[in-house]
């Protein structure tokens, strides 16, 4: 390659936790500038939001009219756009507010809601512009972000994970919490990538990585029911960190309908 590829990190509505996937790299963070030219990364210091770049990492969900304009500009300026984390890929935990009347909430929270500029929903980056790669997770796994960058730098098209957490547990030798402990584990419908964190602590997965490409939710919720969980509690399992991933949104809505 004749010149170093340019990288930008953009933030929308989020907790900043996915940018930490880079800031938490430790000493390898200092090697990153040898591979890429970091031209925009406000939390780290470099500021040039309108720069033309080869790769953009986008964190956060779209929740204001200004965000909508800004993401379009980012798309135009980016050769390859990667959305990172649950907020950017499915609207994040804050998309739970989409289920209700936002304006009424604003009125309860702020004494002068007319000063708050916000849309009626929190939505994914791909709802607004073409996204080249989505890396799920709340937060993303640094390894997955680095691997995607490495693949791009090597001229390889990055591949998305497609297997469920269950496969990860098998690979890591983690004893199944659903089968052996009767815990309401979301692993069978959750995309792998975290490294089986909850299950290796003996707790049920709560799906901070969101759904697998194909979700078979009915047998799982039937099992939850056998374990003594009512529909409302099961709904809260699907309508949680990634409530607006289509498969989880509809699973939760089905459970709500069954409850009524």
């Amino acid at each position, binding site marked *: 390659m004749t010149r170093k590829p340019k990288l930008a990190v953009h933030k929308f509505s989020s907790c*900043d936790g996915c940018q930490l996937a880079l*800031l938490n790299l430790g000493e390898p963070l*200092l090697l990153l500038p040898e591979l890429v030219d970091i031209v925009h990364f406000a*939390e*780290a210091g470099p500021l040039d939001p309108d720069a033309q770049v080869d790769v953009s990492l986008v964190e956060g969900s779209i929740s204001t009219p200004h965000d909508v304009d800004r993401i379009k500009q980012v798309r135009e300026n980016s050769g390859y756009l990667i959305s990172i984390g649950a907020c950017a890929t499915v609207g994040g935990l804050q998309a739970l507010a989409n289920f209700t009347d936002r304006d009424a909430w604003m009125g309860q929270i702020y004494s002068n809601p007319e000063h708050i500029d916000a849309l009626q929903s929190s939505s994914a980056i791909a709802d607004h512009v073409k996204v080249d790669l989505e890396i799920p997770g709340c937060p993303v796994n640094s390894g997955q972000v680095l691997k995607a960058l490495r693949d791009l730098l090597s001229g390889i098209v990055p591949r998305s994970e497609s297997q469920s957490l269950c496969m990860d547990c098998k690979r890591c030798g983690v004893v199944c919490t659903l089968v052996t402990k009767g815990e309401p584990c979301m692993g069978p419908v959750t995309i792998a990538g975290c490294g089986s964190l909850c299950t290796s602590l003996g707790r049920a997965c709560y799906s901070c990585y969101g759904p697998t490409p194909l979700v078979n939710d009915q047998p799982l919720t039937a099992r939850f029911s056998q374990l003594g969980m009512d529909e409302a509690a099961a709904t809260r399992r699907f309508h949680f960190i990634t409530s607006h991933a289509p498969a989880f949104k509809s699973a939760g809505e089905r459970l709500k309908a069954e409850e009524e």
Partner: protein
Amino acid sequence: MDESREIHINVPVLTRVEGEGALELDVSGGQIDNLKLRIYEPPRLFEKFIEGYECDQVIDMVARICGICPVAYQMSAVQAFERLFQFDPGPWVRDMRRVMYCGEWLQSHALHVHLLAAPDFLGFDSVIGMAADHPEAVRRGLKLQGLGNDLIALFGGRSVHPVGVRVGGFYKAPAEAAVADIVRRLEEALPEAEALVGWTTGLEIPDDDQTFVNVALTHAQDYAIGEGRLISDQGLDIDIAEFDAHFREIHVPHSTSLHAELDGKPYLTGPLARLNLNAERLPESVKALMEGCGVDFPSQNMFHSVIARALETYLAIHEALRLLRDYRVPDSPARAVTPIAGVAYGCTEAPRGILWHRYEVDAEGRVTQARIVPPTSQNQGRIEEDVRLSLLNLGLDKDDATIRLRAEQVIRNYDPCISCATHFLKLKINR
């Protein structure tokens, strides 16, 4: 100076702070007409959408308010629920939560001192540029930050939104071999943290004493982190449940984060306030380091907060070592807890200052109402006051670049965490 000179400084995106904020400053006739720390990060409405969720779910939800201090959110929440349920988690859980919290102080302080604040003092735009001239300092910062992250992950699997804390204790106790490994690394890091204190006292620190009120938690035995009473240097001394009788929240038009006042005035929370109020509770070796560092505490110069952060970095390693040296896996990392309906209050010292939670909980252990008051929104009023006084002290006759740098540096002294601040919500409570 030229009294007719007009200065308009607009910093549309503050860099090296967590989240999205901006600064507006207008000067004319030698006076500051307008000074606003604008917080425009969109609100995410956390307090509303957690309604109806179970306490253990809420612990994982509130962590998502902040990627840099998720442990603080989890600890304020779990403390609130366990207080309400009249549950004492016992010494092992209390000690291990303190260790995990030390991990967060360590990573957050190391990140701030080296990556976010130091470039200002040394004349760089970012740590990446700084690394060429100060490679050892940057390496030390990243190493300490990494150690803090690993200390959190020891209990929670990962450092951002860890998964280990539950009502009643932890999901799992770390293995003794993993603890022995981290104890070795903490011992190696202690001299580096000591060097960090010396390094921060060598930075060029402006003389900028101001009058302000310090607020922090305090504890009878320990330097308060995870529990205590709320005190100030103006005589406040209350249980955390009495917060509302003394502190008031205000919505100002230029911010999606509510401001807070104590008895009608801005106040400081965070590392400098803690050190100013709780130096007597420091372990002997940390106190000796503080007394020998060449700066007198208590200090009313907010630029000394970088030294306070360095001293707390050393304290965090010291405390983690003290509590982990004789570590044994307990019979059980958690005990069963029965929910009790009522109002729950929690307050802990996040890296940036006091983080206060209030929840209403039903008999099934579900949250029906929530209010969260993070440190950055509490500091907002103080930040604006500080920028104003600091610029007057600097002299408005300085050039725009100097004024802008000073203003940004003052803001960064507070290590503002703007994602946190925009989830600070005031509710109308109808009873």
